[in-house]
């Protein structure tokens, strides 16, 4: 065997364990599900297996529920700019040379690292409209402390604490079974509750650490030059730090979008069951219910692939837009 072939053989030997798993559990299923999305694969024995071409796709594009769930998924991404801004602010605060700064960094990072079912169950209890501390606190401010008297005097109405996870309302007043905005649905409901929880969980997480790393490595010469020129703190930030952070921001934004489009599953499954009235049903949860409750595996695969394409398109758009911003 010549050297070239022996090298390839050796390489393949090392690669083998990982590669076999990769093919069986990653690459293979990707192809398989793509192929299946063009069939009517399901578990009904009475319906014979058949190739139905693009029928799954035309069906899902014409299904108002698909668009509603897509809207829900997009809605959840409203929190992204706030979360990124928050991470940046926290990172700036943590970049000071202060004794014990790592303690604060640990505390900020804690929600992100412990995120999971246990935390969602915690927030479900927090959001309980009558026994949860959030509303208990709001009630106290409004009624015991008397904020409602003030509000009544100024606006003529009183405020009741929102029903959170059982309310179909949202800040944009999204309608429940059509695409559109409706005044009656304006308020704070399940969707917003989940967004706030998401911001709390993510604000001190990986994104903050990325910003912190970038800030720590920032070359000080430009900053000092600007200071000598008498620039204000805000001007320094806007013209020196922010552009310097652009690549990090770019990366964080793309990852947030990719994650956000795939998200909402755990929240839906653990906290709301997709409700109330389907308002917290995101794309991933929809795919799950179609595949494992309705047993419509071909259709679910089609929806999953549509989601994959959407993610690709959004990433490409972000890439193009971000690239322009990076060079000033």
């Amino acid at each position: 065997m010549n050297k070239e072939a022996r090298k390839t053989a050796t390489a393949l030997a090392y690669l083998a364990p990982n590669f076999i798993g990769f093919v069986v559990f990653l690459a293979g299923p990707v192809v398989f599900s793509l192929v299946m999305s063009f069939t009517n694969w399901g578990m009904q024995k009475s319906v014979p297996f058949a190739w139905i071409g693009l029928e799954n796709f035309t069906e899902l594009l014409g299904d108002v529920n698909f668009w509603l769930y897509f809207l829900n998924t997009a809605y959840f991404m409203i929190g992204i700019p706030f979360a990124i801004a928050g991470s940046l602010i926290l990172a700036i605060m943590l970049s000071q040379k202060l004794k014990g700064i790592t303690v604060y960094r640990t505390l900020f990072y804690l929600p992100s690292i412990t995120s999971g079912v246990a935390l969602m169950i915690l927030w479900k209890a927090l959001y309980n409209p009558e026994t949860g501390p959030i509303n208990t606190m709001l009630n106290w401010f409004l009624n015991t402390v008397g904020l409602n008297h003030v509000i009544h005097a100024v606006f003529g109405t009183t405020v009741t604490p929102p029903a959170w996870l059982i309310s179909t309302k949202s800040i944009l007043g999204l309608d429940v079974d059509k695409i559109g905005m409706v005044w009656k649905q304006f308020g704070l409901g399940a969707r917003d509750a989940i967004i706030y929880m998401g911001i709390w969980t993510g604000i001190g997480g990986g994104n903050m650490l990325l910003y912190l790393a970038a800030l720590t490595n920032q070359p000080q010469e430009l900053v000092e030059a600007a200071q000598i020129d008498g620039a204000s703190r805000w001007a320094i930030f806007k013209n020196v730090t922010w552009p310097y952070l652009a690549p990090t921001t770019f990366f964080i934004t793309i990852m947030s979008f990719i994650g956000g489009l795939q998200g909402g599953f755990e929240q839906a499954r653990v906290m709301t069951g997709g409700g109330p009235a389907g308002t917290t049903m995101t794309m991933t949860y929809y795919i799950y219910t179609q595949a494992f409750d309705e047993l419509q595996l071909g259709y679910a695969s089609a929806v999953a692939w549509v989601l994959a394409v959407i993610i690709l398109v959004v990433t490409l758009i972000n890439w193009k837009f971000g690239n322009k911003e990076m060079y000033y």
Partner: protein
Amino acid sequence: MSTQNELAGQQRTWWNRWGKVTSSHLLLGLISITTMLPFIWMVLASFKPMADIEKINPIPSVWHPENYIEVFRKVQFARYYFNSLFIAAWVTLLTVLTSSLAAYAFARIQWKGRDMVFKLYLMTLMIPGVVVMIPNYTVMVHLHLLDSYVGLIVPAAFSAFGTFLLRQFMLTIPSALDEAAEIDGANSWQILWEIIMPLAQPGLVTLAVFTFLGNYGSFFWPLLIIKSEYLRTLPIGMLFFDTNYGTQTNLIMAGSVMSVIPVIILFVFCQKFLVKGIQLGAVKG
């Protein structure tokens, strides 16, 4: 005159410095407390009797540490703990092992098709996980691996991300060391274990910590595979605990606290690696 000004100037800067430090700590402290509030509530609530839950006072009127024991009596919580840790350990071990070997093949050996195959790995990172869940589930059904440890461990043990991370790490190790060893007559296996792996240790630990934490909190896949109570991991166990005993908020909170503790412990010990790992993962972008 100038001495007085000088002294006054010194005093001012001294005061400024201390003022700044205090106000920074104050601000940071305030934010920390706000961030920690839900956790604080969770821990306090886990000690409360049921009647106290809806009271505005977060502190229990009577402390009930036996709530924690009650959790173990109501559901097989000890089992959930074992399962989560056991499965996460296996997944971590398998992932680190297979990813190291594969990363070595990508980083250190020149072979035909190497870059093409690596691009294939990268491409799968772009696909949302839910796409592969459906075929993987069907495979498990046909192999009769539903509701089994193997079904929970094996599919989760193959990560393209792990290979990618370790490859990047290995690339930073100077190849001069390899060449020196080769001259001494070492073969690729020896180079891997004597030189590369020890130097790649930070990368290995980072991958291990990430994988462990990721699998510990894994929800989607266990939700599909687990049917019997004896197999439940903590996330699934907590879900059913909440579904069946959700009215007993104090017990549920005790369960949540216990679920979260291993993560906090691991994190406190491995902070360094986690922070480094996130930065490493971001470099390629």
